[in-house]
């Protein structure tokens, strides 16, 4: 068995063993108070910038509430897209026996979708709609297409993972929200381990044609910008009672401290992997 198969096989076994079924796992509280941290204050979008001092603690807690709903909505809409994309290529992608794990991936993401959506609707009465959108359709070989599916999933999962870890670890965050982050974190560590192996395995075919590296890099740079941009949701700022959401978003997205945070904490692992594979991201 090659390393990909071995890893995927072990991960499948772990999924089977852990199969706790989220539908019955959580004890859902009747409500979650507004005056608590719904997300670690270190993860708020104004964190690390001098704009943070524009807000008092009460405003920041309210912002944490809506940014929690935003990141859970992104999980929901992202996982929905993930299931659609993985299903689309399920019996075409060249994975041999490592394909087996995709059934666990879809099964687990389906459970995540269920609890993230339920959380948003039960405690905030809404899910923010998907704002990720690709107008330009590049023409791709099947190998490039399959590689991009898994690379986009990994971008999405690495970003979400950082949020899960920080929220699970931060004892200022409401215990139920910490528990959801912790539970998601456990499944996602397996998905990320699998995704990294799969990308290394698919890279050779995806890069076979002249110029593939730059083509894939351009596609992934766009996906990165979309994923990062989605964290700064003007509707969440407005729901938190802050006026001119678009201005807040623009100012934060271009703040050097935030750019540094994206590059190191959220995208560092992904960018190092792409560099090793030979895809020159900007």
């Amino acid at each position, binding site marked *: 068995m090659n390393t990909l198969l071995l890893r995927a096989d072990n991960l499948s076994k772990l999924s089977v063993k852990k199969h706790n079924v989220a539908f019955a796992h959580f004890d859902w509280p009747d409500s979650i108070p507004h005056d608590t941290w719904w997300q670690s204050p270190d993860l708020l979008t104004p964190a690390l910038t001098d704009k943070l001092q524009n807000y008092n603690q009460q405003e920041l807690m309210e912002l944490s509430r809506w940014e929690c709903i935003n990141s859970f909505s992104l999980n929901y809409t992202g996982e929905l897209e993930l299931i659609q994309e993985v299903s689309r290529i399920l019996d075409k992608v060249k994975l041999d026996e490592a394909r087996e794990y995709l059934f666990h991936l879809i099964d687990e993401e389906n459970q995540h979708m269920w609890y993230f959506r339920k959380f948003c609707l039960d405690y905030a009465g809404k899910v923010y*709609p*998907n*704002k*990720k*959108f*690709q*107008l*330009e359709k590049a023409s791709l070989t099947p190998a490039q297409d399959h590689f991009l599916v898994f690379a986009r999933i990994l971008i999405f999962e690495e970003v979400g993972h950082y949020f899960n870890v920080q929220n699970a670890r931060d004892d200022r965050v409401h215990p139920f929200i910490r528990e959801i982050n912790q539970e998601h974190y456990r499944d996602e560590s397996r998905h990320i381990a699998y995704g990294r192996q799969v990308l290394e395995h698919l890279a050779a075919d995806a890069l076979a044609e002249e110029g593939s590296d730059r083509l894939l890099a351009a596609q992934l740079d*766009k996906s990165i*910008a*979309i994923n990062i*941009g989605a964290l700064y*949701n*003007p*509707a969440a700022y*407005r729901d938190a009672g802050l006026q*001119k*959401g*678009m201005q807040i*978003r623009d100012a934060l997205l271009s703040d050097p401290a935030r750019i540094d945070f994206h590059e190191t904490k959220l995208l560092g692992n992904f960018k190092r992997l792409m560099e090793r594979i030979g895809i020159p991201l900007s």
Partner: protein
Amino acid sequence: MDTEEQKFSELCEWLRLKVKWQDSIPLELDLIENKVVNSLIFVEFLMMLEESTGLEIIIDDTLQPKVASLAAVKTHFFNQ
């Protein structure tokens, strides 16, 4: 309160600056077909449209014709 007309011209002006056009963007010009906007700017344009109208915009198959040009946006999202 800004009138609908004012809000609509602010949106047009926001887009003009964003895509760095010298003159105003013709109302009937197809923004997507003529590559006035890329995916990223298009998403921000929708966010701006939400902020200016207070509506929630869902991206689905019915959206494209409603936002294809500034004239279409005006018809569908601003009362005249």
